[in-house]
C-alpha cells in the first residue's frame, strides 16, 4: 500500500530510486541536487538497499561510471544540475548511442556566468540534443512517479535510452510536500528486474563503443533518432499502466481549463502550479485563458500539441532559458516551428521568465495572459521578451 508522507522532494527522489532496487548509484553532489546524493548515500549506508554507491570525483566521472556500470547490466542511477550537467555533456550523447538506460535526476539550475545556484532551465537546454528522453515534473508526487517510471521506460527493449527527470532546483527540489510513496511490493510488481540486451562479461565478449567511419555514422544517428521517436509509444504505455496501478494520470501535455480559451499559457516544470492559480483567477473574471503544461520534452509530443491548441488564437509560451542571439526561448522555438504547417496556427508569443531563481508570481502570469490577449489583434514587434527585466 502506498503511504502518504511529507518529505523534501530531493529525499523523495532518492527514496524512489531506492525503491527501484538500483544496483549502482554514481553521484557527485552539486547544489541544489546535493540532498539527493546525500540521502541516497545514507540509504546505502544503512543497508536499506544492496547497491554500490560511487563517491566519484566529478560529474564527468559520475556519468562515465554510471555508463560503465550500466554496460555490465546494472540498474544505474545518477543525478546532477547546472555546471555538473554541462560537465557531463561530453559523455551524454555517448550514453544514448551506446543505448545505456541510465536514469538521471536533474535539479535544474541556472548555468554560470555570473555564478548562480538558483533555478531555471538553461542547464537542460544546453544538453537538449544529446539523445536522452527528457521529462519535466511539476511537483513532488510527479518526481517520485516519474523516477520509478523512468527505469521502466529506459530499460524497455524497444527503447534502451537514458532518461533525465527534471525537477526545478529549490522551487521544487527543496520543498517539503505531501507525496504518496508506493511500497516496495507495488514497485516490484510495476518494475521487474532489468534484463539487459547486451552486457560486458567474458562469457560473451562484445565490443561496445566502436569507431564509426563516415560510411556508417549517419546510419547510427538515424538509428538513435528512430529509437527516441519510437520511445513515445512505450512512454504512453507505461503512463497508462501507472494510471491503472496507482490512479495518477500522466500525459505528454496536460491541459488545464482550455475549453473556450482564446489564450493558452504554456509552461514546463513547477511553474505550472502557479500558472494554474493565475488561470483560475482570470477565468473567474471571465478572461478566456487556459494552460498547457509540457511534461514530455524529448521526444517532443507534436501530435498532442496540435490537438491541445485547437481553438486557441494565442499561445503565450514561457521559457526559462535564453537562446542568445536566437529566435526566442527553446520551448517557444519548438512550438512555433511545430505549428508552422498548421493552417489554423495561432499567434505564438514568448515570455522568458524566472531566470536564475527570479520569482514568478501569480500576478506575473495574469499580466502575461492579458498581454497575450492583445496579441490576438496586434502581434508584438519582438518575437520574444525577457519578461519583467529592468531596462537599465
Amino acid at each position, binding site marked *: 500500500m502506498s503511504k502518504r508522507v511529507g518529505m523534501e522532494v530531493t529525499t523523495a527522489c532518492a527514496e524512489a530510486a531506492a525503491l527501484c532496487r538500483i544496483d549502482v548509484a554514481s553521484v557527485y553532489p552539486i547544489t541544489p541536487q546535493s540532498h539527493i546524493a546525500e540521502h541516497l548515500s545514507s540509504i546505502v549506508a544503512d543497508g536499506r538497499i544492496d547497491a554500490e554507491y560511487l563517491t566519484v570525483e566529478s560529474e564527468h566521472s559520475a556519468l562515465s561510471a554510471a555508463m560503465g556500470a550500466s554496460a555490465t547490466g546494472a540498474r544505474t542511477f545518477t543525478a546532477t544540475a547546472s555546471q555538473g550537467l554541462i560537465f557531463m555533456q561530453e559523455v551524454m550523447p555517448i550514453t544514448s548511442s551506446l543505448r545505456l538506460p541510465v536514469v538521471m535526476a536533474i535539479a535544474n539550475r541556472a548555468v554560470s556566468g555570473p555564478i548562480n545556484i538558483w533555478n531555471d532551465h538553461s542547464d537542460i537546454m544546453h544538453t537538449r540534443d544529446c539523445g536522452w528522453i527528457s521529462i519535466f515534473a511539476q511537483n513532488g508526487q510527479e518526481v517520485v512517479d516519474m523516477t520509478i517510471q523512468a527505469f521502466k521506460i529506459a530499460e524497455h527493449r524497444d527503447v534502451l535510452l537514458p532518461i533525465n527527470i527534471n525537477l526545478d532546483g529549490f522551487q521544487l527540489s527543496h520543498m517539503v510536500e505531501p507525496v504518496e510513496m508506493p511500497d516496495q511490493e507495488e514497485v516490484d510488481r510495476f518494475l521487474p528486474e532489468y534484463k539487459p540486451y547486451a552486457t560486458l562479461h567474458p562469457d560473451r565478449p*562484445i565490443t561496445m563503443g566502436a569507431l564509426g567511419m563516415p560510411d556508417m555514422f549517419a546510419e547510427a544517428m538515424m538509428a538513435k533518432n528512430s529509437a527516441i521517436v519510437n520511445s513515445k509509444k512505450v512512454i504512453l504505455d507505461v503512463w497508462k499502466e501507472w494510471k491503472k496501478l496507482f490512479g495518477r494520470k500522466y500525459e505528454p501535455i496536460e491541459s488545464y481549463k482550455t475549453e473556450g480559451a482564446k489564450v493558452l499559457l504554456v509552461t514546463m516544470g513547477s511553474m505550472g502550479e502557479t500558472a494554474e492559480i493565475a488561470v483560475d483567477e482570470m477565468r473567474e473574471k471571465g478572461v478566456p485563458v487556459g494552460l498547457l503544461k509540457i511534461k514530455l520534452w524529448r521526444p517532443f509530443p507534436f501530435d498532442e500539441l496540435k490537438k491541445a491548441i485547437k481553438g486557441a488564437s494565442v499561445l503565450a509560451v514561457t521559457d526559462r532559458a535564453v537562446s542568445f542571439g536566437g529566435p526566442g526561448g527553446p520551448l517557444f522555438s519548438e512550438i512555433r516551428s511545430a505549428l508552422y504547417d498548421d493552417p489554423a496556427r495561432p499567434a505564438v508569443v514568448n515570455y522568458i521568465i524566472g531566470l536564475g531563481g527570479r520569482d514568478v508570481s501569480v500576478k506575473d502570469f495574469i499580466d502575461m495572459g492579458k498581454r497575450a490577449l492583445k496579441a490576438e489583434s496586434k502581434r508584438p514587434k519582438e518575437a520574444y521578451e525577457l519578461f519583467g527585466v529592468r531596462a537599465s
Partner: protein
Amino acid sequence: MTVKLSKNQKDIVKIVKGMDKAEYISAGHRACQGCGEVLAIRLMCKALGKDTVISNPTGCMEVISAIYPTTAWNLPWIHVGFPNAGSVGSGVEAGLKALRRKGKIADRRVKTVCFAGDGGTVDIGFQALSGAMERGHDMIYVCLDNEAYMNTGIQRSGATPFMASATTAPAGSAIPGNRTWKKNMAEIMVGHNLPYVATCCPSYPEDMMNKIRKAREVVGPSYIHCLAVCPTGWRSTSETCIELGRVAHETGFFPLYEVENGVYRITVDIPEKRTPMDEYLKVQGRFRHLTPEQRAIIQNRVDVEFNKLMNKVNHSVPWV
C-alpha cells in the same frame, strides 16, 4: 641438427611455452609496423586471461582495434570517451561487483582493466584515474606510454620527454622542443598508496607479463606504466622497437621496477655502468636537433632521477 640457444633465447622459449595460446586481440588490427603498444597489449592480455573486462579510452589502441563493424577484441571491451578510462572502469567494476553479490551474474572474479595512452592518463584522464585509484576499485590501470598524442599526429603530452620534438612543441631555432620533464606517473600512483605499482616494457616480455599477473592477483587497485616504443612518433625505424625499449631501461631513463606495499625493487638487472643517453637519443629523429650540450643536460637529469629511484630501492621498507 640441434641449435644451440643462448640463455636469453632459452628464456624466451620458456615464456612462449607457458603462454596462454588464446589471442585476445587478434591479427588484422590497424596498428603501425613496429608498434610497441599493441605488442604489449597482446602479451598483457595473455597474462590476464579470459576473465577480464577492458575499459579503453580514445587513443591509438581504440582507433586501431575497433572500427565498426570490425573488432580485434576477443575480450569484453568498452570505449566511451577520452578522459574517462578510470571512471568508466570504476563503473564496470562496481557493476560487476554488485551483480555478482546479488547473484545476477556468474559467481567468479572478473578483473577490470583499463588500457589508456599517456594523453588519456597523465593529461586529460588524470582526474578520473586519481579518483578511481583513491576509491580502491579492484582494477588494473595500464598506461601505454608512447610519449605523445601519436594517434592524432604527435602532439606533446605530459609524458613527452624533455626537449623531444613534437608537433605542438617543435624543435625551433628559439626553443629546442618540449620544455617540460616527463611526468613521473608511477611515483604519483605510489602516492595514492596503491598496493602494487610497476613500470614495464614489451622489450622484456617475461618481466612485463609477470607484473601483470601480480597486479591481477591484487584485490584492489594497481597501476602499471608501460613504455611503448612508437616508431611513427619517435622517428625511429620500426625494426628497432624492441632494442629501443631495452636501451631505455639500460640507460636508466625508463628503469623497470615495481613497488609492492611500499617496497621498491628493480626487476631487470641494470648494468653497473649504465648505457649513455646518447645511444638512446641519437637513434631517434625526435631528438635529432639536440646539441652535445643539450644531450648532457638530459644525461644529468636522468642521473638525478635514477639516483632518486635507487635511494628508494635501497631504503624503502614495507608498509606492513
